[in-house]
């Protein structure tokens, strides 16, 4: 079972929930797919090592064959290629690695060469397997790093917990696209609700089963819960707004260690999710 934890707004508690949830489960794999800012490892006491590089293919022009016809640049969706009088410029960071240019070049003058844009890491502690991806600073495309990170999903683990990037754009979609269930963490504030609505819309288009975890319960207002009731979205769990949680968070201690009663609540949530999927 693959469960992905998303949020609309950043800072609502995806990582806290992902780490705490994974720690309550046995024989689990935790994947930190927030490759722009992976931070699950701050809460985990294990060593990680580099296992792979995330790469995308970019075009290389062979000028022995190129006739400067411009078919590549005029058809590039991402404006990564540009024809000037004596050459074709390649803007590496604009390139999404789709490969169209190499396929349509009438002279077969384009070959694709790999370019490293991120790194993939792994750490293990007994039955707890942890992977995360990290986008190289200055790179713009997190989606291919996430897609290559997901190739490290273990077939031997019964439960995979994935920490998604925030928002509702391509990186989030790539993270949830093959998940069985999505947990949407939100905080009960107008800002939290507004961003959550966009994620709800996205998840419905993707036809994903999902439920909501309300974090920092007690701040803000009732609007979030009313919205969930109206939209018939199950509220799976509430995590209280508690200064002790925040204090410990800043020391890298997940809320599970602050509120021991959360252990059984998180376990029950997984049982509930399993039932919802039947």
């Amino acid at each position: 079972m693959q469960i992905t934890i998303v949020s609309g707004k950043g800072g609502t508690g995806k990582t806290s929930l992902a780490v705490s949830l994974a720690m309550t489960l046995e024989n689990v794999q935790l994947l930190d797919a927030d490759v722009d800012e992976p931070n699950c490892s701050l809460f985990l006491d294990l060593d990680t090592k580099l296992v792979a590089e995330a790469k995308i293919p970019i075009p290389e022009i062979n000028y022995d064959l190129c006739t400067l016809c411009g078919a590549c640049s005029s058809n590039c969706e991402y404006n990564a290629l540009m024809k000037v009088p004596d050459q074709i410029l390649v803007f590496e960071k604009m390139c999404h690695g789709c490969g169209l240019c190499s396929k349509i070049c009438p002279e077969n003058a384009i070959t694709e060469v790999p370019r490293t844009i991120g790194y993939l890491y792994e750490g293990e502690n007994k039955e707890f397997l942890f992977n995360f991806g990290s986008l190289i600073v200055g790179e713009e495309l997190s989606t291919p790093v996430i897609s290559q990170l997901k190739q490290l999903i273990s077939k031997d683990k019964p439960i995979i917990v994935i920490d998604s990037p925030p928002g509702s754009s391509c990186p989030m979609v790539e993270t949830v696209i093959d998940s069985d269930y999505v947990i949407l963490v939100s905080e009960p504030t107008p800002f939290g609700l507004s961003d959550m609505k966009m994620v709800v819309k996205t998840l419905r288009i993707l036809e994903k089963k999902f439920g909501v975890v309300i974090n920092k319960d007690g701040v803000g207002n009732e609007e979030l819960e009313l919205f969930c009731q109206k939209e018939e979205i199950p509220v799976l769990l509430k995590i209280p707004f508690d200064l002790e949680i925040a204090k410990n968070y800043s020391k890298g201690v997940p809320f599970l260690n602050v509120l021991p009663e959360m252990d059984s609540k998180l376990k029950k949530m997984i049982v509930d999710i399993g039932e919802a999927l039947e």
Partner: protein
Amino acid sequence: MNNLKVAIPVSSKDDNPIMFERFGRASYFCIFDTEDDSSVVVANPAVGARGGAGPRAVEFLSSKQIQSVIVPQLGPNADGALRAAQITIFQGEPIPVKNLIDKWKKDELRKL
């Protein structure tokens, strides 16, 4: 002086608009031709690009045989593209294009 074409980003097709403050995202380019002191305003095909508007605009100008541009600030991609296309870059300012072209003719604009 040889026949030269110079392009300036503008936001309207008005007779004498002020230079627009962005290069790749300008709605139009005012193209001035020294051969007959004429100017035309053409739509910039890169204005709605999701990304890479700067290089795409340069490609367009290059296809129009532009030799020089008078620009506001430039991003690194547009800058690199202009240099690769061997288009000379002059620093503009947000004043009406006719005044800007006069300054350019008198060689009062800084070459970048």
